[in-house]
Structures are given as C-alpha cells and as structure tokens.
C-alpha cells in the first residue's frame, strides 16, 4: 500500500505564547514549532500499514516554519521512504489554504492520512477538504486500521466509548485521532543519518489565494482564575457545598 501522510507544524506550547500587536493571532516572530500531535499519530499509523502491507510512505509538510525540515527528517528516520517539503516561508495558513497546498503537491497514493485536527486551526477540516478536492472517500476520528485486499477496515471513534467499524474502498483520505500504538521512538543518530539520506525533496508553492472565508477579529489569552477551593468533609457535606457553589454560579436553578 502506497501511503501519503500530511504533517503540520503547530506552535510549541512550552514557549510563552504572546499575542501580536493587533491581538488577532499569536506573535509568531518568536514562536517555536512542533509537529502536530495528531499528525504524529497519522505518521505512526502509516508506518504500521507500511509494515502490514510491505508498502511505502511519503510524508508531506508545508513550509510554514523553520522546524519543518527536522520533522520530515524525523519521519524519514522512523521509516518514511520519501519526504516532501511544500513551499517555504509560507507563514500561518488556514485549513482551506493548507488543503489546497497539500493537494497540489500530492502524488498518486492508495491512502492519505492526516491528523484529525491541529491545535492551531479553527475548523479541523484539512483531511475532509483534501478528500473532497480529490474526490476520495473520507472517514474522520479514526483510531485504527486493518488492510484488506482492495479495501481498508477502519475503526472510528464516536462519543461515550462507542466505536464503529467501516470498510473503505481505496484510494481514501482518513483523519487520524490515534494510531494503534503510541508513536515510536527514533534515535537521534537515525535522524542525523536521515539528514544525509537525500530522501527529502522540496517543491515550490505559492501561498494560495483561497481561504476559509473566516476572519479572526480578536484573540485573547485565558484569564487566570482566582484559585481553587479544597472542599473538606464527608460526601454529604461536600455535595452540599458543591450544590451551593453551583447555585451561586447560577447553574441548575434554585436549589
């Protein structure tokens, strides 16, 4: 099975996040970026499918941050056969723009995997937009795959612990919630070897003109609360106190 994986760089929350001057976005001048956690799971699931089917994996990432090349080298070190960096210096992009760029760069694949969402996006729609543009079937919130002859059996997660099994004809695009196993570790020496491997290619891409039509008018940093109250006493007393607090906050009407 020939698999494409879509990777996105997202702001690293370890850094102190600050807002830009007009308070419509993070101040991205000093931000560090990490691989989106859901995309890390998409890569893991792709590598597991590669092992299941003696297939191949190509990782794609948009050139939105300096750290993207390192993410692609890590993907190669973990077992991706090829990596493609799409464009350079693209800056922050919404889901529609990301989907356009990915579709423009994608080769022929039996399956395309993408994280179900990213921490810095508004609408969580990259995987479904890519599937729509390619005309492929799509399943979202996928937590496991199992390959058949010309199809793929996937597990999709619903609410309250409910999961469903789907059979999807290929080619298809999946939004991955979690891989079958935790993302694998790759030794630093393997990443350094990958830097010399020549498996990374770069393609030109202009910042796309399409957009989601959404304009961000204001971004706020959450306010720090005044503190926590530790509730003492047995469960009766604790329950009374919780009801009192909820009532004071206007929840649940008159107690």
């Amino acid at each position, binding site marked *: 099975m020939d698999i494409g994986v879509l990777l996105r760089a997202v702001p690293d929350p*370890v*850094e*102190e996040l600050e807002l830009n001057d007009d308070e419509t976005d993070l101040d991205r001048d000093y931000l560090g970026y*990490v691989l989106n956690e859901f995309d890390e799971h998409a890569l893991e699931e792709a590598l597991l499918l590669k092992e299941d089917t003696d297939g191949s994996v190509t990782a794609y990432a948009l050139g939105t941050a300096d750290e993207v090349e390192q993410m692609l080298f890590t993907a190669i070190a973990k077992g991706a056969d090829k990596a493609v960096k799409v464009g350079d210096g693209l800056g922050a992009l919404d889901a529609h723009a990301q989907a356009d760029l990915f579709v423009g760069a994608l080769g022929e694949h039996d399956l395309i995997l993408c994280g179900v969402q990213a921490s810095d996006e508004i609408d969580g729609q990259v995987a479904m937009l890519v599937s729509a543009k390619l005309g492929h079937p799509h399943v979202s919130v996928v937590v496991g795959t199992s390959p058949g002859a010309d199809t793929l059996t996937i597990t999709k997660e619903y609410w309250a612990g409910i999961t469903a099994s789907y059979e999807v004809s290929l080619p298809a695009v999946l939004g991955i919630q979690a891989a079958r196993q*935790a993302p*694998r*570790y*790759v*030794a*630093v*020496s*393997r*990443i*350094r070897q990958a830097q010399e491997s020549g498996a990374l290619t770069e393609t030109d891409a202009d910042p796309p003109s399409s957009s989601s039509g959404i304009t961000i008018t204001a971004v706020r940093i959450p306010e720090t609360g005044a503190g926590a109250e530790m509730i003492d006493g047995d469960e009766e007393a604790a329950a009374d106190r919780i009801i009192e607090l909820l009532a004071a906050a206007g929840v649940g009407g008159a107690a």
Partner: protein
Amino acid sequence: MTRGVNPKVDPGRVLEIEHVEIDGMDISGHWNRMYEQRVIFDYDIHQLDRVTELDGGESMGWCYQCAQCIAVCPVDHVGSYGPRKIFRNLQLGQDLFTDDDLWLCTTCANCLRVCPKEVDMLQIMPAVRKEAVLAGAVPAELQDVFEKTARYGNPLGKNAKRRAAWTKGLDVEVPLISEVGRKVDVLWWVSDYPSYHPRGIDASRALARVLTHLGVDFAILGADERHDGDSMLRAGETGLFEMLAEQNIETLNGYEFDVLLTTDPHAYNAFLHEYPQRGGTYNAVHYTQFLEERIEALGLTEQIDRTITFHDPCYLGRHNGEYDAPRNLIDALPGSEFVEMWRNKENGYCCGGGGGGMWLDGLAADNQNMRLSEKRVLEAVETGADTLCVVCPYEVSRFEDAVKSTNNDGNLEVLDIAELLATALGLPTD
C-alpha cells in the same frame, strides 16, 4: 540408594559396574559409575553472544559467577538483580535487549569495584541500550525525556530560553558570559535541575550567594547551556549525547575562562572523560572541590545546630574518587555534628537516579519493592541525623520524595551543601 542419571545423558552409555575388583580391591557400587559422555556445556548461548559481540559488551562473557557483585548491587537490595544474575539469565536465553532488566542498572559502578573479572556494566549496559534505542525499544517514560532533551536541551522539557530565569530577583548578580564580554575566572555550568527544579533553584541561589561572598569572578551561560548528555549516554542514546556534546563544546569554545565549575557530578564526569576526546578540554571542578579549597576564605560564622549525614553521589565518589571535599565542607559547618551512614564512600548506596534511572520511576516501581532513594533515606534516618546533605542535583527531589513516601516527613531534612554553607554565612536562603 540409586542416583538419578542426568536426563540429557543416554542411560545406555553410562557405565556402572555392579561387581568389580581391581588389584584385589573391591570397587563395586554406584560410586564407580563412569560416564562415557559427559555434558559440560549444553546451553544455547546466542543471547549471551548478542551481548558479548557488541563494542563494550565483551566483558559480560568473563563472569565466573562468584556473585560478589550481588552483595553490592543497589538494585538487588530492593529486588533481584545484578551482573551475575544477568549473565546467568543470558545463558538461559533471556533477551536482554527487550527485557526490563536492561533499564534497571543505574551505572553506580559498585559491581565493577568488587568484580575480580572486571565485568564492566558501565560499558555493557550502555552498549546494549544503544542497540535497544536504535531499534526504538525504549520505555515510554524515558522516550519522553529523550525527546524533550533533544528538543529543549533539558530533560524537564522546560523552555530553553528560561534557563537563567532562576537568577531573577536574586540579591546578588549572576552575569551571563555572553554579556560580560571578557575572560572570566570561573564559568559556572549550572545544569538542568539547578536551573529549573524549585529545590534545585534554591541550591543555585545559595551557591550564587556563596560565590559572590567569596568575591569569585564568575558567569553562567544561561540559555546557551544545554544538558551535558552524560546520563543520556549511559541510557544508550548515543546520538543524543553526541549532538549535545557538539553543541556544548561549540558554545564553551567560544568563551575564555580558567575553571569550569560544575554543580552536577554527571556533568563533571562528562567534562572529565567524554568531552576531551571530542575537542572539549576544560579545567572542570565540582563545586564541593572549589569551595573546599576556600574553606578559610569563606569564614563560616553562624551556628548550624544539626546532625548531618552525607550521601556520596556515584559520579562524584566511585566514578571520580572524590569523597573528602564534601565531608570537609560539612566538618567546617560551625556547631554541626557529622555521622556516616553504614554504606559510605566507596560502598555508598546509589540514589537510583543514574544511568537514566532518574526518568524510569515507573519501570523501577514495576520491578523493585522500593525505590533506591527510599532505601537510602531509611539508612539516613537510622543514623539519627536530622539532615541529609547532598551535593548532586538529581538527589534533592529524589530524597525529598522518599522522605515523604517513607513517612519520615519532619524526621529528616534534605539540603544541598550550598544551602548549609549559605546559612553558616548568614546569607539569605530563599
């Protein structure tokens, strides 16, 4: 009485003569049993071969099962472990490369000290771990630390830019060497836990005050300093160590200084034994050695009414032979009384933090009946001391947790020697 025959020996090939007389002497009986064949070696030793074939793994094959190592292995004291047992398990087919046993060794070096065959777990364990790391077979908790260290330059996963944040609001100046713009006498290698961990920061602030009190011309690297890598090397992440060493050497070689003052014995060890072969040769000194030379100049005046015991860090003591400097500093504390734990100096008991153990608490819990740090705290309490003095930044948090988990809160206070010295100088200790 009949004796059983080894089931691996064909009974038809055992010679036992019921009635036999040789030179007039009757030697009838089972005791004349002769084996036509004799099984000397019937193990499948390919798992042992996998270890001894590695660079650094050779000496695993030298073990002759005398078990002196077991008596001193700190992990065996809280479970069943040690080089002799690992050798035996390898003979019996254990796959060390995927077994929890691979990660329990803290590289404390007490086994090597007593081994007549020089079976060197300090080489063997990192060599096998290196292969496990390359294969991705790393315990999840350690994997997380490897990734954080690679990304942020510290195992805590803290923001690299905030490495010097501990100096904020301090009543003495801690200059950054990049801003000093000249040669300094002392470049202080602060290390990770003293930069980021709340109790490590307490010790750093105390040491900054003590150095200032002495009038030492010192500076720190701040955000340019990264994890020294020594523990990553012992944990088998060789590539990560190489990357950190290259970055640190490039940084250090850009500045002029006489002494590289280290807080962390693991960093001290790396600067003495690992960095020189990679182009980084420095006059590395542990802070206890630096301060011991200046005991007179310190002029300690304030009474320290404490009974103090001392824990030897493996990488200061056994690995590098420094036992006296910290003890001389403790002796110099006015009014204090010093008591040794029964395991001290060359036979000091490991805190469990070395060789990656600092980040393998879950794995240790699954395989041991208590933490090494808890065992050590119980020994400290047994001395009657009210204070456990430490000189390694891995230890304050480990031992403070162990004091709580062994219900000794209030019985034993864990303090860095820098905190005790600052108190004896009448300096603030917040």
